[in-house]
Protein backbone atom coordinates (compact mmCIF):
# COMPACT_ATOMS: atom_id res chain seq x y z
CA UNK A 1 0.00 0.00 0.00
CA UNK A 2 1.35 3.40 -1.01
CA UNK A 3 1.23 6.03 1.73
CA UNK A 4 0.76 9.42 0.08
CA UNK A 5 0.86 11.70 3.11
CA UNK A 6 1.82 11.16 6.71
CA UNK A 7 -1.76 11.55 7.99
CA UNK A 8 -2.86 8.51 5.98
CA UNK A 9 -3.52 5.45 8.12
CA UNK A 10 -2.00 2.18 7.07
CA UNK A 11 -4.92 -0.16 6.38
CA UNK A 12 -2.81 -3.25 5.95
CA UNK A 13 -0.45 -4.04 8.80
CA UNK A 14 0.99 -7.52 9.10
CA UNK A 15 2.48 -6.89 12.52
CA UNK A 16 1.33 -4.38 15.10
CA UNK A 17 4.75 -4.50 16.72
CA UNK A 18 8.11 -6.09 16.10
CA UNK A 19 8.25 -9.76 17.22
CA UNK A 20 10.25 -9.10 20.36
CA UNK A 21 9.57 -9.83 24.04
CA UNK A 22 7.52 -7.04 25.64
CA UNK A 23 10.35 -6.07 27.96
CA UNK A 24 13.19 -6.60 25.45
CA UNK A 25 16.19 -4.53 26.55
CA UNK A 26 14.11 -2.64 29.11
CA UNK A 27 15.71 -1.74 32.44
CA UNK A 28 14.03 -2.86 35.65
CA UNK A 29 12.56 0.58 36.42
CA UNK A 30 10.94 0.86 32.99
CA UNK A 31 9.27 -2.55 32.91
CA UNK A 32 5.57 -2.14 32.30
CA UNK A 33 3.18 -3.93 34.61
CA UNK A 34 -0.51 -4.66 34.33
CA UNK A 35 -2.71 -1.92 35.76
CA UNK A 36 -6.39 -1.70 36.50
CA UNK A 37 -9.53 -1.54 34.37
CA UNK A 38 -12.05 1.26 34.74
CA UNK A 39 -15.33 -0.12 33.40
CA UNK A 40 -17.96 2.04 31.78
CA UNK A 41 -21.15 2.86 33.64
CA UNK A 42 -23.91 0.30 33.13
CA UNK A 43 -26.16 1.24 30.22
CA UNK A 44 -23.43 2.90 28.18
CA UNK A 45 -24.20 2.26 24.51
CA UNK A 46 -21.00 3.00 22.61
CA UNK A 47 -17.90 1.95 24.51
CA UNK A 48 -14.32 2.36 23.35
CA UNK A 49 -11.45 0.98 25.40
CA UNK A 50 -8.20 2.92 25.75
CA UNK A 51 -5.06 1.21 27.06
CA UNK A 52 -3.03 4.00 28.58
CA UNK A 53 0.53 4.02 29.90
CA UNK A 54 0.59 5.25 33.49
CA UNK A 55 3.54 6.21 35.66
CA UNK A 56 3.34 7.97 38.99
CA UNK A 57 6.69 9.38 40.19
CA UNK A 58 5.15 9.79 43.66
CA UNK A 59 4.79 6.06 44.14
CA UNK A 60 7.55 3.50 44.04
CA UNK A 61 5.65 1.45 41.48
CA UNK A 62 6.74 0.67 37.96
CA UNK A 63 4.86 2.01 34.93
CA UNK A 64 1.62 0.16 34.20
CA UNK A 65 -1.11 -0.04 31.59
CA UNK A 66 -4.59 1.01 32.70
CA UNK A 67 -7.71 0.24 30.67
CA UNK A 68 -10.33 2.95 30.43
CA UNK A 69 -13.75 2.39 28.91
CA UNK A 70 -14.89 5.65 27.33
CA UNK A 71 -18.50 6.54 26.56
CA UNK A 72 -18.28 7.73 22.94
CA UNK A 73 -21.74 9.35 23.11
CA UNK A 74 -20.46 11.69 25.80
CA UNK A 75 -17.03 12.40 24.31
CA UNK A 76 -15.62 14.51 21.47
CA UNK A 77 -14.23 12.96 18.28
CA UNK A 78 -10.46 13.18 18.85
CA UNK A 79 -8.10 11.11 20.99
CA UNK A 80 -7.36 14.24 23.02
CA UNK A 81 -11.10 14.56 23.74
CA UNK A 82 -11.06 11.01 25.10
CA UNK A 83 -8.09 11.80 27.36
CA UNK A 84 -9.83 14.92 28.65
CA UNK A 85 -13.04 12.92 29.13
CA UNK A 86 -11.15 10.32 31.18
CA UNK A 87 -9.50 13.02 33.26
CA UNK A 88 -12.85 14.74 33.89
CA UNK A 89 -15.04 11.75 34.57
CA UNK A 90 -12.90 8.76 35.61
CA UNK A 91 -9.41 9.51 36.91
CA UNK A 92 -8.36 13.10 37.50
CA UNK A 93 -4.74 12.04 38.05
CA UNK A 94 -4.27 11.12 34.35
CA UNK A 95 -1.54 13.52 33.22
CA UNK A 96 -0.79 14.73 29.70
CA UNK A 97 0.27 17.94 27.95
CA UNK A 98 -2.21 19.78 25.76
CA UNK A 99 -2.84 23.33 24.69
CA UNK A 100 -4.13 24.41 21.29
CA UNK A 101 -6.25 21.33 20.45
CA UNK A 102 -5.77 21.99 16.73
CA UNK A 103 -2.33 20.65 15.77
CA UNK A 104 -0.48 23.95 16.10
CA UNK A 105 1.36 23.76 19.42
CA UNK A 106 2.73 20.20 19.40
CA UNK A 107 2.11 19.66 23.12
CA UNK A 108 -0.03 16.53 22.90
CA UNK A 109 2.45 14.50 20.84
CA UNK A 110 2.28 10.88 22.00
CA UNK A 111 2.46 7.33 20.73
CA UNK A 112 -1.00 6.31 19.50
CA UNK A 113 -1.43 2.72 18.28
CA UNK A 114 2.31 2.42 17.83
CA UNK A 115 3.08 5.57 15.89
CA UNK A 116 3.79 9.08 17.09
CA UNK A 117 1.11 11.67 16.37
CA UNK A 118 -0.75 14.55 17.99
CA UNK A 119 -3.68 13.40 20.13
CA UNK A 120 -5.70 16.44 19.01
CA UNK A 121 -5.54 15.63 15.30
CA UNK A 122 -6.17 11.87 15.46
CA UNK A 123 -9.79 10.73 15.28
CA UNK A 124 -10.87 8.14 17.84
CA UNK A 125 -12.62 6.38 14.94
CA UNK A 126 -9.21 5.91 13.28
CA UNK A 127 -7.75 4.07 16.28
CA UNK A 128 -7.66 0.36 16.96
CA UNK A 129 -9.95 -1.46 19.37
CA UNK A 130 -8.63 -1.09 22.01
CA UNK A 131 -6.61 2.05 21.30
CA UNK A 132 -3.18 2.03 22.91
CA UNK A 133 -1.70 5.28 24.15
CA UNK A 134 1.91 5.61 25.27
CA UNK A 135 4.12 8.64 25.83
CA UNK A 136 6.48 9.57 22.98
CA UNK A 137 8.83 6.63 22.46
CA UNK A 138 12.29 6.38 23.98
CA UNK A 139 12.16 9.38 26.31
CA UNK A 140 12.33 9.62 30.12
CA UNK A 141 8.82 9.78 31.54
CA UNK A 142 7.94 12.58 33.97
CA UNK A 143 4.42 11.33 34.65
CA UNK A 144 1.91 9.26 32.63
CA UNK A 145 2.00 10.66 29.06
CA UNK A 146 4.33 13.57 29.87
CA UNK A 147 7.82 12.83 28.60
CA UNK A 148 10.98 14.69 29.54
CA UNK A 149 12.09 16.69 26.49
CA UNK A 150 15.18 18.23 28.17
CA UNK A 151 17.66 16.24 26.08
CA UNK A 152 15.99 16.69 22.68
CA UNK A 153 15.48 20.41 23.31
CA UNK A 154 19.17 20.70 24.27
CA UNK A 155 19.99 19.02 20.95
CA UNK A 156 17.79 21.61 19.20
CA UNK A 157 19.72 24.38 21.01
CA UNK A 158 22.98 22.85 19.71
CA UNK A 159 22.17 23.77 16.12
CA UNK A 160 21.80 27.43 17.24
CA UNK A 161 18.33 28.06 15.84
CA UNK A 162 18.54 31.78 15.28
CA UNK A 163 19.61 34.13 12.49
CA UNK A 164 23.36 34.67 12.43
CA UNK A 165 24.65 37.51 10.29
CA UNK A 166 28.03 39.19 9.98
CA UNK A 167 26.96 42.16 7.89
CA UNK A 168 25.93 45.24 9.88
CA UNK A 169 22.29 45.26 10.83
CA UNK A 170 20.24 47.00 8.13
CA UNK A 171 17.93 49.91 8.96
CA UNK A 172 14.95 48.08 7.47
CA UNK A 173 14.02 44.43 7.33
CA UNK A 174 16.40 41.92 5.76
CA UNK A 175 14.76 41.40 2.41
CA UNK A 176 14.33 38.11 0.59
CA UNK A 177 13.14 37.39 -2.92
CA UNK A 178 10.02 35.28 -3.05
CA UNK A 179 12.14 32.44 -4.42
CA UNK A 180 14.50 32.67 -1.43
CA UNK A 181 11.50 32.71 0.90
CA UNK A 182 10.06 29.70 -0.93
CA UNK A 183 13.15 27.66 0.06
CA UNK A 184 12.03 27.75 3.70
CA UNK A 185 8.69 26.13 2.91
CA UNK A 186 8.38 22.70 4.42
CA UNK A 187 10.97 23.52 7.08
CA UNK A 188 9.85 26.62 8.96
CA UNK A 189 6.49 25.03 9.83
CA UNK A 190 8.04 22.60 12.35
CA UNK A 191 6.21 22.81 15.69
CA UNK A 192 8.89 20.92 17.68
CA UNK A 193 6.57 18.17 18.84
CA UNK A 194 9.50 15.70 18.51
CA UNK A 195 7.31 12.97 17.00
CA UNK A 196 10.07 12.38 14.41
CA UNK A 197 13.04 12.25 16.79
CA UNK A 198 11.12 9.97 19.14
CA UNK A 199 10.20 7.68 16.23
CA UNK A 200 13.74 7.41 14.82
CA UNK A 201 15.39 4.01 15.51
CA UNK A 202 18.82 5.55 14.98
CA UNK A 203 18.04 8.10 17.69
CA UNK A 204 16.86 5.27 19.97
CA UNK A 205 20.27 3.59 19.84
CA UNK A 206 22.59 6.62 19.60
CA UNK A 207 20.39 9.49 20.77
CA UNK A 208 23.04 10.70 23.21
CA UNK A 209 25.18 11.85 20.28
CA UNK A 210 22.99 11.78 17.15
CA UNK A 211 21.01 15.02 16.96
CA UNK A 212 17.86 13.41 15.54
CA UNK A 213 15.52 14.50 12.73
CA UNK A 214 13.81 17.42 14.52
CA UNK A 215 17.07 19.25 15.30
CA UNK A 216 18.53 18.46 11.87
CA UNK A 217 15.43 19.70 10.02
CA UNK A 218 15.86 22.96 11.92
CA UNK A 219 19.57 22.98 11.06
CA UNK A 220 18.64 22.85 7.37
CA UNK A 221 16.00 25.54 7.88
CA UNK A 222 18.83 27.93 8.90
CA UNK A 223 21.35 26.62 6.36
CA UNK A 224 18.96 27.33 3.50
CA UNK A 225 17.91 30.77 4.78
CA UNK A 226 19.28 33.42 2.39
CA UNK A 227 19.65 35.91 5.28
CA UNK A 228 21.82 33.62 7.40
CA UNK A 229 25.59 34.02 6.95
CA UNK A 230 26.90 31.33 9.30
CA UNK A 231 26.61 28.45 6.80
CA UNK A 232 30.26 27.41 7.16
CA UNK A 233 30.18 27.36 10.96
CA UNK A 234 26.85 25.53 10.96
CA UNK A 235 28.23 22.82 8.66
CA UNK A 236 31.42 22.56 10.78
CA UNK A 237 29.23 22.01 13.82
CA UNK A 238 27.45 19.12 12.08
CA UNK A 239 30.53 17.51 10.46
CA UNK A 240 30.71 14.65 12.93
CA UNK A 241 30.27 10.88 12.64
CA UNK A 242 27.37 10.98 15.08
CA UNK A 243 25.59 14.35 15.04
CA UNK A 244 24.60 14.15 11.36
CA UNK A 245 25.83 10.88 9.91
CA UNK A 246 23.97 8.54 12.26
CA UNK A 247 21.00 9.20 10.01
CA UNK A 248 20.70 6.00 8.00
CA UNK A 249 17.73 7.19 5.92
CA UNK A 250 15.25 4.93 7.70
CA UNK A 251 12.64 7.67 7.14
CA UNK A 252 10.33 6.89 10.06
CA UNK A 253 10.57 10.67 10.60
CA UNK A 254 8.92 11.59 7.31
CA UNK A 255 6.29 8.88 7.80
CA UNK A 256 5.27 10.19 11.23
CA UNK A 257 5.47 14.01 10.97
CA UNK A 258 2.03 15.37 12.01
CA UNK A 259 2.69 18.51 9.96
CA UNK A 260 3.62 16.44 6.86
CA UNK A 261 7.12 17.91 6.79
CA UNK A 262 10.12 16.00 5.48
CA UNK A 263 13.02 15.72 7.96
CA UNK A 264 14.54 12.92 5.84
CA UNK A 265 14.84 15.22 2.85
CA UNK A 266 16.26 18.02 5.01
CA UNK A 267 19.00 15.72 6.32
CA UNK A 268 19.81 14.55 2.78
CA UNK A 269 20.16 18.20 1.75
CA UNK A 270 22.63 18.79 4.61
CA UNK A 271 24.68 15.73 3.58
CA UNK A 272 24.70 16.96 -0.03
CA UNK A 273 25.85 20.43 1.08
CA UNK A 274 28.68 18.80 3.05
CA UNK A 275 29.98 17.11 -0.11
CA UNK A 276 29.47 20.18 -2.29
CA UNK A 277 31.60 22.37 -0.07
CA UNK A 278 34.48 19.89 -0.22
CA UNK A 279 34.79 20.37 -3.99
Amino acid at each position, binding site marked *: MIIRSSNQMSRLTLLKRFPLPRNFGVNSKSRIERGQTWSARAGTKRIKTFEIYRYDPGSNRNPRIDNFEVDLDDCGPMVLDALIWIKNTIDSTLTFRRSCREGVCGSCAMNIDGTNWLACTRFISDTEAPASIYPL*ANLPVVKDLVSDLTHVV*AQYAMIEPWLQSKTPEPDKERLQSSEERHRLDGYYECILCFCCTSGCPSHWWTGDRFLGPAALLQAWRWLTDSRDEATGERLDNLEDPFRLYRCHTILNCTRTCPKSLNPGKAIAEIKKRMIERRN
Partner: protein
Amino acid sequence: METKMTGSPVERSRPQSPNIQIYRPQLTSVLSIANRISGVFLSIAAFGLVVWLIAAAAGPRVYATVQGVLSSAIGQIVLFAATFAFFLHLCGGIRHLVWDGGYGFELRTIYASGWAVVTVSVALTLAAWIIALFTGG
Protein backbone atom coordinates in the same frame (compact mmCIF):
# COMPACT_ATOMS: atom_id res chain seq x y z
CA MET B 1 21.51 24.04 29.01
CA GLU B 2 21.84 25.30 32.57
CA THR B 3 18.61 23.62 33.58
CA LYS B 4 19.80 20.15 32.61
CA MET B 5 19.40 17.80 35.51
CA THR B 6 21.67 14.97 34.44
CA GLY B 7 22.51 12.79 37.38
CA SER B 8 19.99 14.39 39.70
CA PRO B 9 17.94 11.89 41.71
CA VAL B 10 14.78 12.90 39.86
CA GLU B 11 16.12 12.12 36.41
CA ARG B 12 17.91 8.96 37.39
CA SER B 13 14.74 7.44 38.77
CA ARG B 14 12.65 8.17 35.71
CA PRO B 15 11.60 5.22 33.59
CA GLN B 16 12.29 5.25 29.86
CA SER B 17 9.25 5.01 27.62
CA PRO B 18 9.30 1.92 25.36
CA ASN B 19 10.63 2.27 21.81
CA ILE B 20 10.97 -0.79 19.57
CA GLN B 21 8.73 -2.78 21.94
CA ILE B 22 5.70 -0.68 20.94
CA TYR B 23 6.60 1.17 17.74
CA ARG B 24 4.66 -0.13 14.76
CA PRO B 25 6.68 -1.84 12.03
CA GLN B 26 6.40 0.24 8.85
CA LEU B 27 7.77 -0.25 5.35
CA THR B 28 10.39 2.40 6.17
CA SER B 29 11.85 0.71 9.25
CA VAL B 30 11.27 -2.88 8.08
CA LEU B 31 13.19 -2.37 4.83
CA SER B 32 15.97 -0.60 6.73
CA ILE B 33 16.47 -3.52 9.12
CA ALA B 34 16.02 -6.00 6.23
CA ASN B 35 18.82 -4.25 4.35
CA ARG B 36 21.08 -4.67 7.38
CA ILE B 37 20.19 -8.29 8.05
CA SER B 38 20.65 -9.20 4.37
CA GLY B 39 24.04 -7.43 4.44
CA VAL B 40 25.20 -9.43 7.45
CA PHE B 41 23.85 -12.64 5.89
CA LEU B 42 25.69 -11.92 2.61
CA SER B 43 28.97 -11.34 4.47
CA ILE B 44 28.61 -14.80 5.99
CA ALA B 45 27.55 -16.24 2.62
CA ALA B 46 30.73 -14.78 1.10
CA PHE B 47 32.71 -17.19 3.31
CA GLY B 48 30.62 -20.01 1.86
CA LEU B 49 31.54 -18.86 -1.64
CA VAL B 50 35.23 -18.90 -0.70
CA VAL B 51 34.84 -22.41 0.75
CA TRP B 52 33.22 -23.53 -2.51
CA LEU B 53 36.05 -22.02 -4.62
CA ILE B 54 38.76 -23.56 -2.42
CA ALA B 55 36.99 -26.91 -2.70
CA ALA B 56 36.95 -26.59 -6.49
CA ALA B 57 40.71 -25.93 -6.45
CA ALA B 58 41.43 -28.70 -3.93
CA GLY B 59 40.26 -31.50 -6.20
CA PRO B 60 37.26 -33.61 -7.17
CA ARG B 61 36.80 -35.39 -3.80
CA VAL B 62 36.58 -32.22 -1.67
CA TYR B 63 34.48 -30.54 -4.35
CA ALA B 64 32.03 -33.45 -4.40
CA THR B 65 31.62 -33.19 -0.62
CA VAL B 66 30.89 -29.43 -0.71
CA GLN B 67 28.61 -29.92 -3.70
CA GLY B 68 26.78 -32.59 -1.71
CA VAL B 69 26.19 -30.20 1.20
CA LEU B 70 25.00 -27.46 -1.15
CA SER B 71 22.56 -29.72 -2.97
CA SER B 72 21.05 -31.05 0.25
CA ALA B 73 17.68 -29.63 1.30
CA ILE B 74 19.24 -27.33 3.92
CA GLY B 75 21.95 -26.26 1.48
CA GLN B 76 19.33 -25.36 -1.11
CA ILE B 77 17.31 -23.34 1.42
CA VAL B 78 20.43 -21.42 2.47
CA LEU B 79 21.33 -20.82 -1.18
CA PHE B 80 17.80 -19.59 -1.93
CA ALA B 81 17.94 -17.26 1.10
CA ALA B 82 21.34 -16.00 -0.03
CA THR B 83 19.97 -15.28 -3.51
CA PHE B 84 17.06 -13.34 -2.05
CA ALA B 85 19.38 -11.49 0.36
CA PHE B 86 21.62 -10.61 -2.58
CA PHE B 87 18.82 -9.10 -4.68
CA LEU B 88 17.19 -7.39 -1.69
CA HIS B 89 20.48 -5.82 -0.68
CA LEU B 90 21.25 -4.83 -4.29
CA CYS B 91 17.86 -3.17 -4.84
CA GLY B 92 17.95 -1.57 -1.37
CA GLY B 93 21.44 -0.29 -2.12
CA ILE B 94 20.29 1.32 -5.37
CA ARG B 95 17.40 2.94 -3.47
CA HIS B 96 19.86 4.36 -0.94
CA LEU B 97 22.13 5.59 -3.75
CA VAL B 98 19.23 7.56 -5.27
CA TRP B 99 18.46 9.03 -1.83
CA ASP B 100 22.10 10.04 -1.41
CA GLY B 101 21.67 12.05 -4.60
CA GLY B 102 18.84 13.89 -2.86
CA TYR B 103 16.02 12.34 -4.93
CA GLY B 104 12.93 10.34 -4.04
CA PHE B 105 12.11 11.77 -0.62
CA GLU B 106 8.40 12.46 -1.16
CA LEU B 107 6.47 10.06 1.07
CA ARG B 108 4.62 8.49 -1.87
CA THR B 109 7.97 7.95 -3.64
CA ILE B 110 9.48 6.44 -0.48
CA TYR B 111 6.62 3.92 -0.39
CA ALA B 112 6.61 3.31 -4.14
CA SER B 113 10.37 2.66 -4.22
CA GLY B 114 10.07 0.52 -1.08
CA TRP B 115 7.44 -1.76 -2.59
CA ALA B 116 9.42 -1.79 -5.83
CA VAL B 117 12.45 -3.11 -3.91
CA VAL B 118 10.31 -5.88 -2.40
CA THR B 119 8.64 -6.84 -5.69
CA VAL B 120 11.75 -6.66 -7.86
CA SER B 121 13.95 -8.61 -5.45
CA VAL B 122 11.34 -11.38 -5.14
CA ALA B 123 10.94 -11.48 -8.94
CA LEU B 124 14.71 -11.55 -9.58
CA THR B 125 15.20 -14.32 -7.00
CA LEU B 126 12.52 -16.46 -8.60
CA ALA B 127 13.85 -15.69 -12.09
CA ALA B 128 17.40 -16.60 -11.09
CA TRP B 129 16.25 -19.93 -9.65
CA ILE B 130 14.03 -20.79 -12.59
CA ILE B 131 16.89 -20.08 -15.00
CA ALA B 132 19.33 -22.03 -12.84
CA LEU B 133 17.01 -25.04 -12.57
CA PHE B 134 16.31 -25.15 -16.32
CA THR B 135 19.82 -24.49 -17.59
CA GLY B 136 21.87 -26.15 -14.84
CA GLY B 137 20.56 -29.37 -13.52
